[in-house]
């Protein structure tokens, strides 16, 4: 039902200075929906919002509003309004004139303007503030004025660019509830941008999780939380234990060297997978019959509502558990996981694969650099090859200049007994590494690969 979509985004792409900020974005927004674009900074969510608002033109693709392409229409002719990150109120106008700004441009009669402004002031509980200068308002009050200023024009869609980011925690929580209430009362479609996963889970009907210019997952907050499609989503939304696993057959999965029943089907038999278990879904038990594996409590911290514990399993993995009851450090505990609570995901990749070219018999060019390899039979200089490197065979060095290529730690996941890192090289290549060493996001590293770890095969045969 195309009529149900107020906004339909098709094949939207945008680059800034050669860097792809948005890469073939496709999704639609239903009328009256509260949709959140969620992702870490630099994922392209703000760029996407600014394209919908009309401040940036897309390189490719279309933005359809009620079926009509609006990509070529300037922002002042789009029936959309924006609430900006730092409010962007007009400092030379008082509260009333700020809110009336859009209506005055439409040349509405004065009594109509007054009626609508007063109604909006009431909606955001700022009735007595109409003569105040905006500089004299607190952050939360300024934000209310900004929301009123946008909504007073009765836009078809309200765009909100991290509107609560500048407020303190308590105020943010209050405003979240108020925003939800305003959305309910006005019935207008809201597109909300944030990097705060909790805010997204609280507010949204639908969440669009973005990373590096691509949509990772679209779904309801419950879907996204309970059934993340990949490690990025699982790690970004809430706390999670992400572990290497193996699907034995339908409804049976192995990880942390134990076998568990689960509810996932259709992965095939004996297939490597990733497994997500939320820390609140691992249960303590006193009943040996229920116990699936044993562990020893390693640390226990009070977090307000619950305790956060790290345990070492009998098979040598570290897991995070959240529970209302604390267990003392050193306690041997029995644990089990419900089949429902095990989320099995396809592995995005099982090894690094690069396109390469033979330089000579013992050298291959991959990632824009020359690596030494074992003497290759049947491969001649200039041959195009595929180079495969296992995650654990990549060596990371403290000093960038010691490596064959230099890069930085771009993303990291703890997988219970090792770290899975994404390294972004200076030339823009991604290389994935399994390591026991501790690195931080943003660390500068040199990358080296032992000659025997590079497996080469001819391309196109």
């Amino acid at each position: 039902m195309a009529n149900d979509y107020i906004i339909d985004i098709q094949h939207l792409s945008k680059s800034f200075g050669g860097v792809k900020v948005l890469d073939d974005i496709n999704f639609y927004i239903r009328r009256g929906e509260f949709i959140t674009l969620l992702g870490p900074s630099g994922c392209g969510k703000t760029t996407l919002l600014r394209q919908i608002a009309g401040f940036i033109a897309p390189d490719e693709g279309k933005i359809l509003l009620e079926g009509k392409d609006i990509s070529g229409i300037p922002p002042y002719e789009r029936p959309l309004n924006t609430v900006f990150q730092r409010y962007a109120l007009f400092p030379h106008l008082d509260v009333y004139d700020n809110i009336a700004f859009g209506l005055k441009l439409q040349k509405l009669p004065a009594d109509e303007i007054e009626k609508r402004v007063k109604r909006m002031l009431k909606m955001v509980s700022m009735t007595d503030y109409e003569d105040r200068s905006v500089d004299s308002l607190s952050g939360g009050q300024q934000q209310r004025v900004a929301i009123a200023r946008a909504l007073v024009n009765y836009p078809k869609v309200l765009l909100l660019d991290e509107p609560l980011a500048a407020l303190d925690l308590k105020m943010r929580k209050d405003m979240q509830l108020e925003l939800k209430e305003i959305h309910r009362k006005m019935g207008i479609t809201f597109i909300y941008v944030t990097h705060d996963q909790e805010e997204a889970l609280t507010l949204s009907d639908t969440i669009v999780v973005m990373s590096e210019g691509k949509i990772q997952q679209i779904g309801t907050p419950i879907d996204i939380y309970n059934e993340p499609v990949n490690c990025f989503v699982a790690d970004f939304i809430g706390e999670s234990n992400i572990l290497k696993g193996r699907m034995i057959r339908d409804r049976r999965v192995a990880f942390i060297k134990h076998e568990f029943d689960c509810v996932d089907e259709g992965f095939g038999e004996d297939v490597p997978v990733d497994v997500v278990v939320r820390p609140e879904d691992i249960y303590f038990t006193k009943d040996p019959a229920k116990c699936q594996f044993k562990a020893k409590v390693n640390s226990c911290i009070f977090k307000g509502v619950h305790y956060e514990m790290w345990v070492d399993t009998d098979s040598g993995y570290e897991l995070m558990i959240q529970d209302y009851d604390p267990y003392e450090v050193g306690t041997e505990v029995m644990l089990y996981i419900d089949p429902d609570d095990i989320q099995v995901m396809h592995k995005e990749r099982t090894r690094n694969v690069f396109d390469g070219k033979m330089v000579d018999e013992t050298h291959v060019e991959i990632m824009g650099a020359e690596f030494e390899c074992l003497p290759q039979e049947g491969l001649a200089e200039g041959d195009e090859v595929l180079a495969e490197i296992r995650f654990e065979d990549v060596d990371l060095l403290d000093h960038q200049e010691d490596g064959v290529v230099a890069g930085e730690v771009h993303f990291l996941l703890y997988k219970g007994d090792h770290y899975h890192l994404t390294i972004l090289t200076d030339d823009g290549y991604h290389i994935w590494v399994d390591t026991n060493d501790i690195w931080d996001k943003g660390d500068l590293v040199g990358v080296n690969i032992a000659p025997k770890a590079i497996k080469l095969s001819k391309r196109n045969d």
Partner: protein
Amino acid sequence: MKKFIAKAYLWILLGLLYAPLVFIAIFSFTEARVLGNWTGFSTQLYTNLFTGNAGGGSALLSAVRNTLLIALIASLVSTLLGTVAAVGIHNMKGRSKAAVQFVNNIPMINPDIITGVSLFLLFVFPHFSQGYVTVVLAHITFCTPYVVLSVMPKLAQMNPNIYEAALDLGAKPSQAFWKVLVPELRPGMVTGFLLSFTMSIDDFAVTFFTRGTIGLDTLSTYIYTDARKGGLTPELRPLMTIIFLLVLVLLVVFNIRQHRAVAKSQAK
């Protein structure tokens, strides 16, 4: 003792600075042609100045009129040009921005005499007839960079989203400029305007080279010619006294306003 010396130093310094002005003010109340002779108290020079019976006839008054008119036109046009230029420069990025800012600074550092001679050559070369128009154009040339310089910081302080917010609420780019940008930049524009105005009134070198031969005089060129003819017209003494008092009043008002603005922003 130390305190006394410090105070005395200050007063001597102030005395030396202001003595010439006080001297002129005192001698504006006597009729003697030669500065320094006291022939008894009289307000005759003031009367002459305002009735047009000055020594140079109406030439002095017309010079004053020219000065003010040129300054007004030049600083109005510069304020407009400079503000638009500042917005443009502000929206540029990286190297080109730095380059344009550097180019903007050159006319301010360049000695007036060089600006004057080069403008003279520029106007003479295509046989452009010199007079009022060329003087105004020349003044706009050297005033505009000062406006750019006083508007730029206001742009930097401004929330970058407010222009977009105006567009978002339905304002066309020109409406957003007048309704949102200009009110935000007004303090910078006023500073730029006042700077241009005083620079224009003050200018001698550039005016001298661009006024041509039609006998156009501003105050500075009039005084220069007058002094060379032998002795200053006595009516210049009350004129200078009045200008000085006007500037003093303006300065005091300006300071009080600024003081109040600071106090207001601290009270918030």
